[in-house]
C-alpha cells in the first residue's frame, strides 16, 4: 500500500451544511493524517451526525470542500464515498443481522468468477478470506463464516466491520460511537481493532458524545460545539475530567 507522504488522508475545508435556516455545521475545518486517530467529541445536537453524513456521502455540504488524499470530492451517495476509500462503521448499521458473515464482509464489494460467461459469486474465496479475518480478530464465538451475524456480540460486529475496512484498503475509517453500550472487555476488543487499522496507515475519525470513550484511543481530540470546531487538543495535554469540562462548557457557553 503506497501512501503519499505528508498529504492528509482527509481534509475538511470550511465545510458548512444548512437545512433551510438551520445551520447544522458551520465553517468546519479539520484534517486527519494517515495513521492518526482523531476523536471528535460534542454534545447531542453539536452537528456530529450531519458531519458524518457529509463525509460518508449521504448529504452534500452546502459549502466548503471535503478532500480525500488531497483530491476534492463530491459524493452523490454512500457508494461514492466508499469507492473513494472512506469506510464508515455505524453503531447500528454495520452488519446485516441474518446474513452469513461472509456475505456481510463482502457486501457491495463481492468477488466474482466467470462460469460459462456469467458472473457468479466466488463463494469459496470469500468464505476463505472472511475466515482468515475472523481468526485474526480472534472471534471465539464464531465457528464458521457461514454463521449469521446474529451470533456475534456488539463488539465483535464493530471489530469485524473495522477489519473489513482494513481488508478493502480504505484510507479513512469513520467510527460512529463504536463502543456505546459495550462492556469493558468488548470495548477493549474494538480498541484493538482501531489500533490495527491505525497501524496499517488508515486515518481514523472517531466520533462520540462521550469523552471517556474517545480518550484512550485518540491521538488528538477535536471538540465540536453548535456546528463549529471549538478547539483541538492533543491527548495528554488535558485530563479526561478537564476535557469533559471543556465539552460541557462549550455546550452551554
Amino acid at each position, binding site marked *: 500500500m503506497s501512501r503519499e507522504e505528508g498529504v492528509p488522508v482527509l481534509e475538511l475545508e470550511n465545510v458548512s451544511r444548512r437545512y433551510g435556516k438551520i445551520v447544522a455545521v458551520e465553517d468546519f475545518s479539520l484534517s486527519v493524517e494517515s495513521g492518526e486517530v482523531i476523536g471528535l467529541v460534542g454534545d447531542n445536537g453539536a452537528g456530529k451526525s450531519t458531519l458524518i453524513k457529509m463525509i460518508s456521502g449521504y448529504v452534500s455540504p452546502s459549502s466548503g470542500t471535503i478532500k480525500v488524499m488531497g483530491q476534492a470530492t463530491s459524493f452523490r451517495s454512500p457508494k461514492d464515498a466508499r469507492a473513494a476509500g472512506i469506510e464508515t462503521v455505524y453503531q447500528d448499521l454495520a452488519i446485516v443481522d441474518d446474513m452469513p458473515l461472509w456475505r456481510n464482509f463482502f*457486501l457491495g464489494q*463481492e468477488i*466474482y468468477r466467470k462460469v460459462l460467461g456469467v458472473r457468479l459469486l466466488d463463494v469459496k474465496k470469500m468464505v476463505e478470506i472472511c475466515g482468515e479475518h475472523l481468526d485474526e480478530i480472534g472471534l471465539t464465538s464464531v465457528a464458521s463464516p457461514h454463521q*449469521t451475524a*446474529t*451470533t456475534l456480540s456488539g463488539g465483535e460486529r464493530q471489530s469485524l466491520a473495522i477489519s473489513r475496512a482494513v481488508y478493502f484498503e480504505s484510507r479513512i475509517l469513520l467510527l460512529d460511537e463504536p463502543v456505546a453500550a459495550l462492556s469493558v472487555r468488548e470495548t477493549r476488543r474494538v480498541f484493538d481493532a482501531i489500533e490495527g487499522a491505525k497501524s496499517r496507515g488508515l486515518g481514523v475519525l472517531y466520533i462520540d458524545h462521550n469523552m471517556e470513550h474517545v480518550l484512550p484511543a485518540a491521538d488528538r481530540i477535536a471538540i465540536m460545539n453548535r456546528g463549529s470546531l471549538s478547539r483541538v487538543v492533543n491527548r495528554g495535554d488535558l485530563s479526561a475530567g478537564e476535557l469533559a469540562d471543556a465539552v460541557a462548557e462549550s455546550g452551554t457557553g
Partner: protein
Amino acid sequence: MTVRTEWLTRSATVWGRLLSHREFAPVMAIFILWTIFEIFSEVGFVTSSGLMGSVAALTSSLGMVAIGVTMLMISGEFDLSVSATFAFAPAIMGRLMGASINDGWEWPILPALLVALALVAFIGLVNGLITTYTGVPSFIVTLGMLFFVTTLNRIVLDGLPVDLVRETGNLKSILGGDVPGTPFAAPFLWMVGVGVTLAIVLRRTQFGNWTYSAGNVGGGVARAMGVPVRRVKCTNFVLTAFLAGFGGILQFADFGSSSQASGIDLNLLAIVAVVIGGTSLFGTRGTVIGSMLGAIILGSVKIGLIIIKIPSQWYLGLVGALLVVSAALNARVDTLRRGGQRSSILG
C-alpha cells in the same frame, strides 16, 4: 473456546442440523401428505400420473407467482397486486389477438405476448417507484394497485372471457402445451426452470446478495455499504409483477381461456406458499426452492382432499392451519440458525 464448543454441540444434533435447513420442513410435509393421500386414496396418489399432473397444474400458476413474491419479500417488500396482474397479462394479450367476442385487433401471438409482458413489468415498476420514493409501505401501495388493476381488467375484458381456441402456433404449445412422455403441462416446467434459475441468482450472484441485504432494517446497512437499495427493490418489484403476468399467460395458453376472475386468490395463497416454504415476512431470510415446495404442498392438499373424499370446504381451513404451523416452525428454525438466540418480536 468454550463458546465455540457450545455452538457446535447445539447444532450437532441431527434433528437440529436438518431443521436449520429452510427446505427441510416443507420436504417433510410433502412426504407426509403424499404418504397419507397414497394410503387413503382408492386410486393411488403419487402412483397416479393423472393426479400428479393435476397437482402440477395447480402448482405451476401459484408457484410462478410465489417465486417472484419470495424474491420481493426477501428484499423487504410485499406485492398484494399479483393476483390482478396475473389476470391482466392474458386479458391484454387476448384482446390484442382479437380473442374476445368484443374483438378489434388481430395481432399475432408473439407481439401480443411481448406487449402484455411489458405492461405488467411496468405495473411492477410503478409499485417499486412509489414504494421506494414515497416511503409508503408496499403493503398499502400494492393494495391500491390491486384495486386499480382489477378495474383495468374489468375495462379491458368488459366482463367477457378471452380464449385461445383458434390459436394453433408453436408458441402456444411452448407456453402451455403438454410435455410429451410426462403427465405435466409446459407451465410446470417453466415454473421449475424459472425457480431454479432464480434460486441460483439469489444465492450466487451479486444481485442476490444485494436482495438479501436490502431486506434488513429498511435496507439501512445495505445503503451504508454502497448497495443501490432502491434499484434492487424496484428490480424485484418488476420481477414479481413480470412473473405474475407470465404465470397468467402460461395458464391462458394451457387452459385456452382467461377471465377477470383468473388467479383471483393468488395474492394471499402465494404468501401462504412462501411462508410454508420457510421465508420470513420481515426480509433477508428465505429461499425460492422452499416457496416452490410450498406451492406443491398447497396443490397436493387441494387435490389430495378430493381424492380421499374429504369435503372440499375443508381446504381453506387446512391451508390456514398449515400456514400457522409452518410460521411457528420457521421461528424455531431461525432460533437454531441464530445459534440459539430467540428472535425479537419483529425479527
